[in-house]
Structure formats: structure tokens, C-alpha cells
């Protein structure tokens, strides 16, 4: 029996029960895994931690859409800082939300299916852009809020944070996408 794949804007932008649950799950995963790795700080001027968990908003965005990515990045980062006891830093929450949102825009091309190399590469490209834009937003916001100089925001925050997130995200994202694809096939949904 042939299965018709849904390809409509509602699949990308709609928010139903599925999206709500994946938003919550993704945020909990991102917050929980970030908390584990928040103690590993990268030598830099700002609050930059080594964070393999960055793959979570990238993955949830790419598979479940931009709104899910936005929520997972933003609330997940808030959750991670919350349980670490570091407080709330809204510009970094928004920055992380942007990472997931932009990674989620890959769905406009891939419709959330990553069963071929082309779609995985598209997800990687959107993920990379998302990391640079999201971290850039947070780092450049610190020029205004913390009165950092432009060079400090770049060398001290943008480069170490975006560099670490790019390496972590771009290595782990395809692994997760392939594993997710295999799992969905096994459960008859691939």
C-alpha cells in the first residue's frame, strides 16, 4: 500500500499535540544534557560551555519544525541554567531558540524526512546557519547589555561558543538523523 506523505505548510508551522509533546521532551533533554556538561567551560571571556547537547534543538527543529526548535532551544537553555542554578539570561535563551528555529527551517525543503544524503546535508547547512545566527545574536547582545567591545564579543564569545556548537552539532546531527530514520523504519513510520 502506498503511503502519501503530507507536504503542507501545516506540517512545518502547525502546532498540535505532537508538537507540544516534542517541545516539552526536547526542552527537557536539552536542559538535562546541558546541565551535565555545563561544568565543562571553554576558555573564553564569557559564559561558554562545551555543549554536545546543542544537537538536541538542531535535531528537534530539523525533524519536528521551527516552532519546536525555537521552544527546545529557548526553554531548554533556560531549563539547563535553571537546574544548574546559574539564573536566567534571556539573551542567551533567545539565541538558543533562534538556533533551533533556523535549524527547523530545513523542513521547508526536507519535510522532516532524512532518508537521503541530500536532506541530511540541507539539515546540516541550516543547522550551521542557525548556530552562527543564534550565538551571534546572544554575543552581540552582550555588546549592548554587558558593554563588551566588538572584538571581545567576537573573540571571547562568538568564536568559542559558535565553534564548539558547530563542531558538536554538525558531527552529532547526522548520527541522530540516521538513527531516528532507522528507528522510525523499525516502528513502521519511516
Amino acid at each position: 500500500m502506498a503511503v502519501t506523505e503530507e507536504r503542507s505548510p501545516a506540517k512545518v508551522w502547525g502546532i498540535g499535540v505532537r508538537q507540544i509533546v516534542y517541545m516539552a521532551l526536547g526542552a527537557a533533554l536539552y536542559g538535562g544534557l546541558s546541565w551535565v556538561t555545563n561544568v565543562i567551560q571553554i576558555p573564553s571571556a564569557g559564559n561558554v560551555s562545551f555543549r554536545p547537547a546543542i544537537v538536541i534543538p538542531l535535531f528537534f527543529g530539523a525533524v519536528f519544525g521551527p516552532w519546536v526548535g525555537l521552544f527546545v532551544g529557548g526553554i531548554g537553555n533556560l531549563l539547563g541554567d535553571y537546574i544548574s542554578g546559574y539564573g536566567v539570561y534571556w539573551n542567551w535563551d533567545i539565541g538558543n531558540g533562534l538556533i533551533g528555529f533556523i535549524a527547523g527551517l530545513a523542513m521547508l525543503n526536507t519535510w522532516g524526512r532524512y532518508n537521503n544524503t541530500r536532506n541530511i546535508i540541507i539539515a546540516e547547512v541550516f543547522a550551521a546557519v542557525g548556530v552562527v545566527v543564534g550565538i551571534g545574536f546572544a554575543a552581540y547582545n552582550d555588546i549592548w547589555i554587558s558593554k563588551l567591545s566588538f572584538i571581545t564579543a567576537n573573540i571571547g564569545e562568538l568564536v568559542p561558543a559558535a565553534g564548539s556548537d558547530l563542531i558538536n552539532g554538525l558531527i552529532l546531527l547526522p548520527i541522530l538523523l540516521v538513527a531516528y530514520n532507522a528507528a522510525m523504519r523499525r516502528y513502521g513510520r519511516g
Partner: protein
Amino acid sequence: MIRLYTGSTHEPSCLLLFLFGLTAAQTSNFWFILTGFLGAVFYYSLAGLKWSETKRVWYFIIFLNTMLVVFNYFLSAGSVVQGVDLTHQHVLFSIPFIGLANKLPFFVPKPLIFSVESITFMITQGLRNFGIAFLAIPIPFTTNPGLMGIAFKGMGLPDKFAYAVDLSFRFLPSVTRDFGTTLDAQRARGFEIDKLRGGIFSKIAKLAPMVVPVVIGSVVGAEDIINAMELRCFGMGKRSWLTILHPRSVDRVVMTLTLVGFFAITLLNILGNFYSTGFLHVLHIQGIPQFLLP
């Protein structure tokens, strides 16, 4: 013990934190920032947090803030002062240092200048960041996670999103448990997360046996929750909440004062662009007393 913002809701503390950041960003006047800092310290003191509860976080914040201020000074070769008139800098001393140049090799010897203005700016910057920390740290220590969803609802978020916030806090223990179980299972197979070998790329790729089972297992397991919620017609009608948070008078006063303060400072900042002297220009100067100038 007075817990100003958490007895009923944490909206006041979030609003205060958000607008404090935006207000403090508009000036580098030492006296304004000092006033805000003292206000933040007073606010923090109302939470009644003990040093033993928060010392780990404070060590981190002190280290981070010091690094931020010092790195910023050195990376900018002392040209740190922003947002204020700096036509006549009062130089105290300078030390040999390196700075950036437009042509190869891009690094040239340059003196690192220490002036009254730049040192005042560093102190102001430190006070600003500590002020933000004094407002940010009490939130996780004094807010009941069970009230997070309803508090977000109170801040104007739609029901669906507020419920998702609530749900993410409920997922957290099971996610942590899954992570622990997976870690133990992988350790039993000889995987040691703290002894990963190889280069940075190899180490990250080797984290996959930890990350993949937790994420994929959770995503697959979430299908049951989705089905259960759909069977109960989640999201079909207007949602009601078991807990209702009522802002107290003190919460309303804090929110009103925060908004008034923010708009007053913003207005003063805008007006300051049209005046070069006097009170209306006060946010555009550092406010260093004359007797401190050499």
C-alpha cells in the same frame, strides 16, 4: 523570610530582570549603575538565600564576571569606554602591550592605557553584571518548578506553550533517569565517558552511544504520551489550570515601579542626545567627581 516575587508568581522577578538589563544597557553612568546594583542587592536579600546554598554559583559568577571585565579590557587594548563622552581622557599610566592593526601581521606593539575613565568603566561594567546576577540567581532558587507553566501563562504565553513548559519540567526526572540508565548500560559495555580517547572530532563522535539511545528512546516513547493526550482531546477547548496565581499588592508595586523606571531612563537617554550638558545629559557621562581627576 520575605520572598517578594515567589509567594504568588515569578512574573515580577522576570520583568524586573528583563527590564533591569535593558535599563542598565542604556547608560554607563557610575551613579545610576551603583543605584541599580544596590537595588538588586536589596532585592536579592529579600529572598533570604544562604551562602551555603548559592556559593557554588557565586564562585562561578565572580570568576566569569572578572574574566569578562579583564578580558574585555585587554582584548580592546584599553579602549573599553562606550556610550559616554570621552573627549578628554585623564591618563594615569600605560604599559607596553600589543594591539590590532589593519595590515599584516595585524598585531603591533601598542601601549595599554589606564585612565580614570577606563578604570571607572571597568568598575561600572562589573557592577552592572553583578547587578544582573543578583536578580537572575534567586529565580531558580526560589521558584517552585511546578508553578513555571502557570507563571508563563500569566506572562501572556498561550495555553499550549505554557503547558509545554509545565510538561518539560515533568519530563526532566525521567530524562535524567534514562540518561543514568544508558550511562550505566554503556559503562557495562566498556564505554567510559570520562576517558574518551582521540582528537576532538573523534571524542564528540564517541559521545553518540550516550546521546543517541537517550534521544531516540525518548522520542519513540513519547508516542504513547501523544496518543494518551489525543484520546483525552488535549487542546480542543479552553484549558483550565489547577493552580491559579494571584499577584499580591507588593508584586504589582514592583512591576509598576520597574516599568516606570525603565520608561523614565529610556526617555532620559533619548533626551540626552539633544543636550550636551545638564541633567538631561546625565546618562551620557560617567559621573566621575572632579576631585578624582588628576
